[in-house]
């Protein structure tokens, strides 16, 4: 029920955006994320974009985990 999937904003017209997910294009309402811009990634749920995704935070998490994995391999 609370499943939401990342989608890339392709275009915006008023409070409706075209978003692309896995090669498919869908309409998404944007009134819950008023500052959204073309090129942003959003979480799509029940036809609405409910949050914008933070690229820097994603990269930071992955970088931290990659360093941890390397350190773990070193220990072994």
């Amino acid at each position, binding site marked *: 029920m*609370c499943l939401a999937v990342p989608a890339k904003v392709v275009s915006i017209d008023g409070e409706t955006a075209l978003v692309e997910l896995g090669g498919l294009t869908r309409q998404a309402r944007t009134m819950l994320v008023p500052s959204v811009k073309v090129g942003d990634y959003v*979480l799509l749920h*029940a*036809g609405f974009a*409910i*949050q914008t*995704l933070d690229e820097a*935070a*994603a990269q930071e998490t992955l970088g931290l*985990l990659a360093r941890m994995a390397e350190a773990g391999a070193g220990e072994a």
Partner: protein
Amino acid sequence: MRFLTEFRQPALAEALAERIRRWSGPPVSLMEVCGTHTVAIFRHGLRGLLPPQVRLLSGPGCPVCVTPNREIDKAIALASNPGVILATFGDMMKVPGSYSSLAEAKASGADVRVAYSPMEAVEIAQGNPKKAVVFFGVGFETTAPTTAASLLEAKRLGLRNFFFLSAHKLVPPALMALLEAGEVRIDGLICPGHVSTIIGSRPYEFIPRDYAIPCVISGFEPVDILQAIAMLLDMRAEGKAEVAIQYRRAVRPQGNPQALETMAGAFQVGGAEWRGLGPIPQSGLHLRDGMEAFAAERHLEMKIRPPREAVACRCGEVLRGLINPPECSIFGTGCTPEHPVGPCMVSTEGTCAAWFLYKPGG
């Protein structure tokens, strides 16, 4: 795909699993609150990566599963009125109420339609001005803002044939009820990622403060969930109890203020009945003052008989983390996804369905 595949890398998952397997503390029980987490944990086989002293429990985080029979009975009664179109999310269709399901009501001639978005229900109302269109809204804080936005849109359009029946519920009050009951030992909570995109991290702060239980808000990919488990174990090892955000790419401490404001524009908080947990104060969303024109219960006829529960079904105990599904006598025999008796087997996010589909033989 961006923001998904990077969090499925086997090397990162294995490194995290290895770190979790080094846990040398006492046995811990960690509860994943959210049904979407439950499904992800089973689908990716994450339980099999954990050492025996790190146990995962499934909590009450499937909105379909916690909807009591009485609310489904009401939806069916509304749909049974001639001249009414009832729209709801597909997840609700097969859930048995006291006497039938919405799918059965549809088969008997009621006009019940599945909507992917609550805005579709608004569009149905616009296209059918001579019919009364009811949206049966269900879901936690992830979904409630979308319903609220649709209600506010119906108000803006001046629709007089659009009505609403609410089964929307809030997660933090249910967690408080679960912890207050103290029926099951919980050493850490994996908090729901998409609920938290809306509400942020602050509404969980009472959990470490009042119950000394650490919480981690987690994403839904294997690496996310394993990292959340590792973070909970780190906090246990250090004797810390805080609310931490693993799902930082989607969750900010303040949540989504616009979504919260939209919810407040359509709803007010009040009591709600939960399957398995009973009545919980301040845990449901009802139409706020000024939105009464949309109240289906007030404007449409609704004849309901007293609710009743399936006798053998133990969904209530499954939802509270007291038993695993195979401990229910009808699991996998009298109750299967093909012929579900209880909602935990109906919902794709139900704990019983996850056990049945991904763990044959229990």
